[in-house]
Structure formats: C-alpha cells, structure tokens
C-alpha cells in the first residue's frame, strides 16, 4: 500500500484528497499546510508519493518540490493545480515533478496520475 503525503493550504482540498486517496486504497501518512511544513514532514515520514499544491503561503509548491528533490532525488511528487497555472506546472515538471492533477479533483484523475508513477497501482 502506498504511503502518501498531502500538501495544500486548503483544508477542503486536504480533506477531499484524503477521502479520495483512502477510498482508492492508499494510506495518507501526513498532511502539510505549506511548502515549509512539507519539507519537514517529508523528512519525518519519507512517503512513497506527495501530492503538492502549487500556490501556498510561506513557501509555494515549486520551491518545496525543489528543496525536497535536492535532498531526496528519488522523491515522487505530483502537483495539484488549478487552470491558469500552466506555466508553473511546466516549471514543476522541469524540476522533477512526476505529473499533475487539474482541479476539480476526481478519483479517476488521481488514479491516472499515480499510475503513471506507480504502474502497479493500475488495478486499484
């Protein structure tokens, strides 16, 4: 079972992601409200995958991605994004993000994005 960390400043999105990921069969091991908290929690929990919001206060998702990837080259991070953030998604991919999910979030979109990173999850 994959261990996943959720990073988003929105309580609604964190709860929605937790619900949807757990219903698919993943294990949510940590939730962070900012990029800075994400870096600390990544170190503590070493999740198999991170879902990372792009626009957050204190530290945005792209900066957090860069810093996590610097210390953990194999970190697998998927960006969660709204329309209008396409340039930032591209920057995230260029810095090692493994994919993205466009809001509104659905289980189908999550499974598709996670399966690209972990093909063995295809039948979940």
């Amino acid at each position, binding site marked *: 079972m994959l261990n996943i960390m959720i990073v988003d*400043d*929105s309580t609604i999105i964190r709860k*929605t992601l937790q619900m949807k990921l757990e219903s698919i069969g993943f294990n949510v091991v940590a939730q962070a409200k900012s990029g800075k908290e994400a870096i600390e929690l990544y170190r503590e929990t070493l999740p198999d995958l991170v879902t990372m919001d792009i626009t*957050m206060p204190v530290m945005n998702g792209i900066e957090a991605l860069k810093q996590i990837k610097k210390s953990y080259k194999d970190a697998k991070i998927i960006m969660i994004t709204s*329309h209008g953030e396409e340039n930032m998604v591209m920057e995230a991919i260029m810095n090692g993000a493994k994919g993205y999910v466009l*809001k509104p979030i659905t289980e189908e979109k999550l499974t598709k994005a996670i399966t690209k990173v972990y093909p063995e999850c295809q039948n979940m």
Partner: protein
Amino acid sequence: MSKYVKAIFDSISNTTIAFLKHDISLDIEDIATGVTFDYTDKEYISAVSFSADIKIYFVIYMDRELSNHIYKIFFPMELEASEKLELLKELPKEIANTIAGLSISSFPVSYQKAILSPPIDIDKNLSKKFSSSKQIRTNRGIFTYEIFVVD
C-alpha cells in the same frame, strides 16, 4: 467598460452558472442582476482576484442552505462537529478559487496568463470602477457574486 473587461466579466459569470448547474447539479430558478452586495457580517463569503494589466475581484457569497448542500456533496460522510464547522468555513474559499480557476481558460487570449490570488479579505472601501453583481436563486439556496475592477 472595455470589451476585454466585459469579456472577462462574461467568462466569470458563465463559468459560475455552469459550475452551479453541472458540477453541483443545481437547478437555476432565477437570476437577479445589479443586486447590492453587502459584505458585512456574511458567514459564507470569499474573494479572489485576478491580476493582469488590470485587477479584477471576484467575491462570492452562499447562503447557509446552499453552503450546507455543497458541503454534503463534498463530504457525504459523518464528521465530527468541529471538523465540519471548519470545513464549512473554508468551503466558500474553495468554491471561489475553483470557479475563478475554471473561468481563466475562457478569458480573452491576452488575459489568459492572469494570476489568480489565493483567497483574500475584501476591503469594503475599495473604489470600484466597473462592477457586475448577480444573485442566483437555485433549488438549494442562493448564490450571490460580484465582479469588479478597482480604480
């Protein structure tokens, strides 16, 4: 009002109605335009802004009935009262952000790189240059919004 500002206003309006109809599956019973939007003491209110060469604000307000209905769609299971309260409080921010994000792709091309803000507090003393407000009565409550450009 320039044609671009009008086009942006129309994009946001159309996206709002489409979101309520298709994403929340609501029946639209009536739409009133030019409503006076009083921001004070509103429970379920949120605002975002779009920044390009102009700054456009999008403020939404949902009445309690509609907020509870949308909450149940997002979270159909039973949650602790304190958690439910927190999620209800945050819900308008997410709705405003989602509609605003969805609307950008139908902006005039030169405005499609507009930067969407996170949820912001509205300064009631903002001087509005152009504004458009609508009150949408649905079968599950009332959704009110205002779009405006500041001086």
